């Protein structure tokens, strides 16, 4: 089992969600995040005083999948989230020891 984490541009969330649903993914967790990578920040000016805003808003999307599907899911996310411009984000996967569905107590891949 794998946890796929994707950091994407906020306006790409709908595209990614649709693509994942079409692929057959039935659940995900989305949170608002901020950070920086190669894109860097931007500058804002208030009454002539310049502020460099380093941290830019991103969406952090997490999906639990069966290990055999992980590569395909990553491809789906990358394809849907890509604009080709700097700041498109990153996607990574990490191994997951166990998963429990709280309502039923199902464990492992059954709980995905």
């Amino acid at each position, binding site marked *: 089992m794998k946890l796929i984490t994707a950091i994407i541009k906020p306006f790409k969330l709908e595209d990614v969600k649709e693509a994942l649903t079409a692929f057959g993914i039935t659940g995900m967790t989305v949170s608002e995040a901020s950070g920086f990578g190669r894109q860097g920040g931007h500058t804002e*000016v*208030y*009454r*002539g*005083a310049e502020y460099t805003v380093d941290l830019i808003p991103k969406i952090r999307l997490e999906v639990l999948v069966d290990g055999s599907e992980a590569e395909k899911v990553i491809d789906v996310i990358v394809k849907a989230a890509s604009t080709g411009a700097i700041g498109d984000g990153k996607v990574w996967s990490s191994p997951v020891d166990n998963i429990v569905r709280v309502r039923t107590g199902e464990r492992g891949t059954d709980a995905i």
Partner: protein
Amino acid sequence: MDVVLNSGDTAWMLASTALVLLMTPGLAFFYGGMVRSKSVLNMMMMSMVTIGIVSVLWVFYGYELAFGHTSDSPWYGGFSLSGLGSKVNDLTNNGGTYPIPLLVFAAFQLMFAIITPALISGAIADRAKFSAWAVFVAIWSTVVYFPVAHWVFAFGNKVGDTVTGVGYLAGKGLEDFAGGTAVHINAGAAGLALAILLGKRVGWRKEAMRPHSLPLVMLGSGLLWFGWFGFNAGSALAANGIAGLAFMNTQVATAGALVGWILVEKIRNGHPTSLGAASGAVAGLVAITPACAFVAPWAAVVIGFIAGILCSLAVGLKYKFGFDDSLDVVGVHLVGGIWGSLSIGIFGASVVNSVGINGLLYGGGLALLGKQALGVGLVAVYSFIATLIIGFAIEKTIGFRVKKDAEVEGIDLNEHAESAYEMYSSSRGGSSL
């Protein structure tokens, strides 16, 4: 001939009084939007509590100290604790009898006494102990605003042809229609003194201290602009041509300043900003305040436009000199007030107002400019020094600043046990009832 009450004038003054009151909640929005989300309530409360404190003082002795006739002094009006009880049937007498009830005049002037200390609060955003601020407002109003209002606005007790108890600057011929000196320079100089005395906010110039809600700032500037028609046109104390002149000049000077400020931004930074438009409007309102009944409308546009440029450049001075005048009380109110007060010495014209005298451009020479400079200098120096002394005394007794950890965590939570916004539903918590 006895003056009898005029219902038209009285109606306009009642409306103007309510307009000027609205400026202080408007100021609370204007300032509140400019601070960080953790201190917006404290910022707004500094204005709101001023309404509470000054109104009470005004009834018991403030009005008498500013406009009373018992002392015959150029420096203060008089001492009386009558609570305005003996004035209920009087008409206004301020260098002549006006056909409006004294209580209406007293209520109108009260609104000026309220907003002046409220303006100062922007210089010490995010870091003043609320109790210390409340004490400061009471003492500052008593020692600084009430007397200075007498110097500038008290035209004396006129009985027959004799006038007594004229305020010092009014007697010297200072032209300040609605408070460029008594309100704006006064508040600006006091703001400078407190900003220096209290010191910088934790993290100043290191962390981004961005305005947390520019729509609140825009709302505030709109309310200020609207209320300012009462402030300036109401200062005619009548529904007449002078009120109309002041009204028009208020509008066009503000417009000129708005354009001037965002033009500077466009040229200097590349983007005209909403904060710049709101700030420019207020700078224009400040600058035209003393001049609004003494200059022609074309001159009001010029005064406003220059104010917009001047103030947009002046707000950068705090970084050069290293004092944290958080919301630019100095850059906008002191600088705008000085420019507006001096501008009458240039653009003043007796053809637009027979009470006024000619400035430089109308062949009046430097005489009027000299009187204006005296008013500017006297009020600025007195306010600055008196504020330093009051602030120092408060700092040494009850302390003026909140503790560092309270300031970092947020002054709203620590001084008021409230937070302005529910950021996360998980922070909703439970009731202890």
